[in-house]
């Protein structure tokens, strides 16, 4: 039986060194979990997209608006059950740094097309009846202290009020989303409210509809419906591109740039740094244990067993440090999510992230331990005993 008690004793013999190495491992693994969670959050919206929702947008640009008349035409397409107008409002609350999304949409369709939006306070009826009403996501509501009945003043950047005042919305409901494709940070208000303001001159800004959100009839063929809608507007005045909700969200992710590449390079750099730290420690430890290695071999422990002790030391060190990092990532999930807040909703430390962190830890342990282990294996007893350590 291999002398396992040596593994732990040797590691903890020099407490400062052990803690320093384990500490840097913990921090690095925590960082890796953080990075991966950010990527996962970006992709989560895409993965959770509803299969029966389609987005009709301008083929030309995100910033081009579609004619109002398109709405009724789309509704008449076979396979379309409901249609909703949807405009990015692009305003801010008090300060430009206070960011959360606002959308103008057809209030009578919102609940039906987005069943994920569940009210936790207030009522849909109230929202639908009052032209100036809005519903706000839980996260934003708690961050700024909005309650049902409050009036929320939004400064219009894309749609300024002609007289320079704020757009005021009355909170009729607070919602929570049941899936990851809709976040808990958005403010929804009536499309008609915006439309009337633009018509009357009270507000100014681009005319037209940003996108149309379509809910397909059950059993409709998705590809068919998409091509029917595209074909209908092929000749203009504005050419459209109908995509699935997943594709629509993916386009935003890919526009941010080559995030996977960027994150991988950083992750790679971090891995190299901790590998070097672990290797440094293991080599130091191995050198100090040279005489012990000789003793074990003299006593009759085989080369492989002795090498194993050193490899296990490396694995144990990494398990300790990496484990601490994983615990740190898991336990700070809520605080980090709160910090990222409404700017980057959807932060979550998934089991997948934790498992890959464990894998990375294992890898570092193996790579850092293999050198010292091989050296121990090949060391001759006489040479080892001759060293004064």
């Amino acid at each position: 039986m291999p002398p396992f008690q040596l593994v732990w004793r040797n590691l903890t013999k020099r407490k400062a060194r052990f803690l320093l190495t384990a500490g840097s491992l913990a921090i690095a693994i925590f960082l890796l979990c953080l990075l991966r969670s950010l990527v996962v959050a970006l992709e989560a919206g895409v993965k959770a997209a509803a299969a029966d929702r389609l987005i009709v947008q301008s083929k030309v640009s995100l910033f081009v608006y579609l004619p109002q008349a398109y709405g009724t035409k789309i509704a008449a397409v076979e396979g379309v059950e409901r249609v909703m107008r949807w405009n990015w409002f692009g305003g801010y609350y008090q300060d430009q740094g206070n960011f959360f999304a606002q959308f103008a949409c057809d209030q009578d369709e919102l609940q039906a097309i987005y069943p994920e939006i569940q009210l936790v306070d207030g009522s849909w009826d109230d929202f639908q009846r009052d032209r100036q009403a809005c519903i706000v996501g839980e996260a934003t509501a708690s961050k700024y202290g909005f309650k049902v009945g409050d009036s929320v003043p939004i400064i219009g950047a894309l749609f300024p009020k002609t007289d320079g005042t704020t757009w005021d919305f009355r909170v009729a409901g607070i919602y929570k989303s049941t899936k990851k494709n809709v976040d808990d940070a958005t403010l929804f208000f009536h499309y008609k409210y915006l439309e009337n303001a633009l018509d009357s001159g009270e507000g100014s800004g681009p005319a037209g509809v940003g996108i149309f959100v379509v809910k397909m009839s059950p059993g409709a063929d998705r590809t068919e419906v998409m091509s029917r809608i595209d074909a209908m507007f092929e000749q203009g005045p504005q050419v459209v591109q109908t995509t699935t909700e997943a594709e629509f969200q993916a386009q935003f992710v890919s526009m941010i740039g080559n995030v996977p590449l960027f994150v991988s390079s950083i992750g790679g750099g971090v891995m190299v740094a901790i590998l070097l730290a672990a290797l440094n420690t293991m080599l130091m430890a191995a050198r100090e244990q040279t005489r012990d290695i000789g003793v074990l071999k003299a006593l009759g422990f085989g080369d492989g067993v002795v090498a194993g002790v050193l490899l296990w030391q490396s694995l144990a060190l990494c398990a300790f440090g990496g484990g601490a990092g994983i615990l740190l990532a898991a336990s700070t999930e809520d605080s980090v999510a709160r910090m990222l807040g409404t700017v980057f909703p959807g932060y979550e430390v998934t089991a997948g992230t934790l498992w890959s962190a464990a894998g990375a830890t294992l890898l570092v342990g193996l790579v850092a331990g293999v050198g010292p282990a091989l050296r121990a294996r090949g060391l001759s007893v006489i040479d080892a005993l001759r060293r004064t350590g």
Partner: protein
Amino acid sequence: MALVPLSYNLRSLVVRRSATLLTVLGIGATVAVLAGVLALQQGFATLFVENGRDDVVVFLRQGSTNEGDSVFSLERAQILMKTLPDIERPIDGPPLVSAEMYLAVRREKVGGGETNVPIRGVQQGTFRILGDDIRVVEGRAFAPGTDEVVVGSKLADRIADCRVGDTLVLNTTPFRVVGMFDHPGPFKSEIWGDRDRLAEALERPVFNRVIAKLKDGVDLGELKERMESDPQVPCKVMTEREYLGSQTTAFSFVLRVLGAFLAAIMGVAAVFTATNTMLAALAARTNEIGILLSLGFKPWAIFASFLFESLVLGLLGGIVGCLMALPLNGVDTGAMNFQTFTEVAFAFRVTPQVMVVAVCFSLALGLLGGALPALRAASLRPTQALRRD
């Protein structure tokens, strides 16, 4: 004032080769990541800021932050262009003023996926104002009033259908690419065409900005104030350089924060590695320290000696890190400018500034890593030190 000879430290570093190497590499990896992120930021910022002109002035709609938001109706733009007295109007030619349309258009990338490319509809005045900054490097300039466009030099290899001779379809109208142009700044990531033709094709009968060259001696500050409260066409006025500078703030800020964050986390791991190495050096040289003390060297000299050694480690790490980051210099990359949501192509710039920051950082790492061991070394008593085997 006896200092421990520096050669002693340098030789000690060489003798403990593997530990020195691992620590230097660890610090180097950290520094390289920091330098990489900073080089990205520098590349982005210098593209914009360095190439903005002080003698060209930009007019945007009041309340907007970038030309994407800013919208002038045709009427207002004409009023501005025809009546503003500060614009230079040469006797022997048209006034040096031009109105432009700007839209971020969705195009396919050469390798797959989509991105947003800026399309700028310009009047001939733009070419008169910018002069030699715009150079046609292939083909020719587009003829005014035709469905022709020229593409910036950075686009040909990255965006589909952007080679001279290709046809770009915008909405329902085909445009022929008749030439490629170069510009020292961000314009080389744009597609330019005749403003009137583009406006019609895209159904966008508005201007986004007006640019002009002002008469000599115009007080820019006074003009800014005057235009802010102009009754007919209230607008924001700034030099092109100021405008481009304002476009980089968000992204630069994000990159700087990212760089600092990464550097801090990886820095901790690097410091731990350095401390470990120096502690091991201390343990191995306890006897030597005892000898030095008994010879008459003061404790602070020992402290300084150890600190010097870890500073050397830091410096070497910094140099290695810079060397690792240098190959990035000039490498082309692209990033999303969040403010206009368009992709900008630029190159990494490993500037002297970046390297200075990197080396200072690595010296700080060396200093932090060596502080504790140096303190321990200095507090050894001669009898203690000499007794150790």
